[in-house]
C-alpha cells in the first residue's frame, strides 16, 4: 500500500488478516466468527498501543506523509466563498504559498498557507512548498490588506523551509522573512497560526507570528530538519531519527516548552486517514481562538502578541551577579 508507515505495519498486517478470515467465512463453509472477534479485540489493543505511543520519528513520518492534507485540502472544508489572490506586485507569484479571502462560518477572514504538491508535476510548480522571497512578500501584502479591512488572518504552516537557492538569496530571502516577523508583530487583527505538517525553521516562522499558535498532533516545528541537525551535530544525516528525539520537535514537545497554545488532536494514524474529520477538529480550534481574540481591541491584540513572544525562552539568573549589583 502506498504511504504505509513502518511503525504501523503490525496494525495493518493484523487488519489484513482479519479481512482474510472474513473472506474465508463468506466463501467456505467454516465459521471463524470467534477467531475474528478475538483478533478484533487484539487489533483495538494494538492500535491503542501503537498510535498512543508514537515516537517523534513516527510523527515525522506522518507529518511528511505524501497524502497528508495540505492548505488547499483544508480550505474548502473550513471556509466558504474562497477567492485566491496572487502575486507580490513586485517580482512574481510564488505557488509555494497560497493566499486569499473567504468566510469562516460567515465571518470574513484572510487565509494564507504554505502549499506543497501532491504529485511530481505539482511539486515542481509549487517548489515542494518551499517559498522564495516573493512568496513571503505576497503573504505580507495580503496580511496588510487584512489589516486594512479588519479581517482576522488564519495561517497554515506546512513547509520544509524557505527555499535555499541562488535566486532566493539574490532577491533577499532573509529580508523577506525578517520583514514578515516584524510586520506581523504590528497587525491590528487577530492572527491564528496552525502548523498542519512540517514547520521548517524560518521559512515556517515567516507565516507564524500570531496571537495563537496551534499544532496538529503529528506535525513538527523545528529550527532545522532532523537530517540537517544530524549532519551538523554528528556529521551523519542517517542519524536523523536520533536527532528527531533529541530536538523536541513534536507538538507535545512544543506544548511543554510553552511555544504553542493547543495541540489539535489527529485522526488515529494521522490526518491523511480522514481529512473531513480532521478539518472538524481544526474548525473547533479556529472557532475557539476567534471567539477569544475578537474580544480584544487592536492594541490588546498587538500587546498579546508581544507578551506571547516575549515569554518564550528559558534562562537563569546568576546569583552572584544579582548580589553584587
Amino acid at each position, binding site marked *: 500500500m502506498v504511504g504505509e508507515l513502518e511503525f504501523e505495519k503490525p496494525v495493518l498486517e493484523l487488519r489484513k488478516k482479519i479481512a482474510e478470515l472474513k473472506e474465508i467465512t463468506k466463501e467456505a463453509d467454516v465459521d471463524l466468527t470467534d477467531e475474528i472477534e478475538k483478533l478484533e479485540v487484539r487489533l483495538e489493543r494494538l492500535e491503542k498501543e501503537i498510535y498512543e505511543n508514537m515516537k517523534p520519528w513516527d510523527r515525522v513520518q506522518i507529518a511528511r506523509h505524501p497524502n497528508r492534507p495540505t492548505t488547499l485540502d483544508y480550505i474548502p472544508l473550513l471556509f466558504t466563498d474562497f477567492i*485566491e*489572490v*496572487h502575486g507580490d*506586485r*513586485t517580482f512574481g507569484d510564488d505557488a509555494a504559498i497560497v493566499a486569499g479571502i473567504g468566510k469562516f*462560518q460567515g*465571518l*470574513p477572514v484572510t487565509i494564507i498557507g504554505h502549499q506543497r504538491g501532491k504529485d511530481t508535476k505539482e511539486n515542481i510548480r509549487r517548489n515542494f512548498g518551499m517559498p522564495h522571497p516573493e512568496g513571503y512578500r505576497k503573504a505580507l501584502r495580503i496580511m496588510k*490588506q487584512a489589516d486594512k479591512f479588519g479581517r482576522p488572518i488564519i495561517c497554515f504552516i506546512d513547509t520544509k523551509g524557505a527555499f535555499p537557492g541562488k535566486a532566493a538569496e539574490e532577491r533577499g530571502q532573509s529580508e523577506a522573512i525578517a520583514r514578515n516577523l516584524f510586520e506581523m508583530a504590528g497587525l491590528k487583527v487577530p492572527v491564528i497560526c496552525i502548523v498542519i505538517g512540517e514547520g521548517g525553521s524560518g521559512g515556517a516562522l515567516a507565516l507564524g507570528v500570531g496571537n495563537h499558535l496551534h499544532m496538529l498532533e503529528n506535525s513538527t516545528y523545528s529550527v532545522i530538519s532532523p537530517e540537517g541537525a544530524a549532519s551538523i551535530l554528528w556529521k551523519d544525516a542517517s542519524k536523523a531519527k536520533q536527532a528527531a528525539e533529541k530536538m523536541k520537535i513534536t507538538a507535545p514537545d512544543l506544548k511543554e516548552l510553552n511555544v504553542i497554545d493547543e495541540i489539535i488532536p489527529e485522526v488515529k494514524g494521522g490526518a491523511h486517514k480522514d481529512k473531513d474529520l480532521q478539518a472538524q477538529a481544526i474548525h473547533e480550534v479556529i472557532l475557539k481562538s476567534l471567539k477569544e481574540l475578537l474580544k480584544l481591541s487592536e492594541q490588546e491584540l498587538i500587546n498579546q502578541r508581544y507578551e506571547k513572544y516575549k515569554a518564550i525562552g528559558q534562562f537563569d539568573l546568576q546569583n552572584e551577579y544579582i548580589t553584587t549589583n
Partner: protein
Amino acid sequence: MIKDLFTKPKKKKYATIPSEAAKQDVPEGIMTKCPNCKKIMYSKELTKNLKVCFHCDYHYPMNSQERLASFLDEDSFQEIDRELVSTNPLGFPEYLEKLEKDKEKTNLNEAVVTGIGRVDQHEVAVAVMDSTFRMGSMGSVVGEKITRAIEKADELSVPFIIFTASGGARMQEGVLSLMQMAKTSVALKRFSDNGGLIISIMTHPTTGGVSASFASLGDYNFAEPGALIGFAGRRIIEQTIREELPEDFQTAEFLLEKGQLDAVIARAELKEKIATILDIHQPGGDLVWLEN
C-alpha cells in the same frame, strides 16, 4: 500596424495604442468573424455571450455602455459628471475637432463614464474607461471625473470599482495630462486611508500613465484574459534594449506570472467574483458574528 491590435491579438507586435483604425471592433451585420481564430458566428449570439468568442475565448473589447450593462444590476446605474467636457488648454492644433468627431461617433462626452450603481445589490461607485473615445487617453476631464467618482465613493462609504482601457496620457494636454496621474492617486490614497475598498479591472489595452496610476492601485488588481497591460510600448522597449520580446509579453497572463495581478478573470465570471468580494468586504460583521 495599429490595426494588428484587433485583427491579430495573439501577435500584438506593435500593439500599444488603439487608433481610429480600430474603432469598430465588431463589424456591423448579422455575422461576425473572430479576429483571433477567424471563425464566423452570429453577432447577436456573440453579444449575448458578453462578446467572448465561443471558439477561442477571445475577449472582444467592450465599450462603456456594454460594460455597464453587463456588470451592473439592471437599471441601477446613475451617471454623474456627464457635463464635464475638455477644453484645449495648450491650443493644440485640431484637438477640439478631434474631440467633436469622437463625441459624435461614440455618443460620449469623454473617455470615461462614471457614476453610482449596484453589483448584486451592493452599491458601488464605478468608472468605466472607453477606448473608443480618443483611445481612452487621459486628459484633464478623465482625471477629474475619476477623481470625483473616488470622492463620491468616499462620501457614500461604498467601494470604488474602475474598469481601465487606455492608451495612456492625452498628448494634446501635455503636462496637465501627466498630472492627472498624481491627482487620481492622491484621491485614492485618501480614500484608502479612510478604509475604502478599491477594485481595479484592467481591460484591453491598459497602458502608459493609466497603468502607472489608478489601474495599479487597487486593493485587488484584476485583468481580463489576453488584455495588453504595460507601461512602455513594446516597440520602444525593443528599440531600447535591441532584443525581441516574448510573444506573451505584457499580456494579462504574463503579468499574473510576474506577480502584478491578483487574478485574471474571464468575463463570464467577473460579476459573480466581484460580488463575492464585495460581500466579504461588507463592514461591521465582527461583533454580530461574535454574538451568534
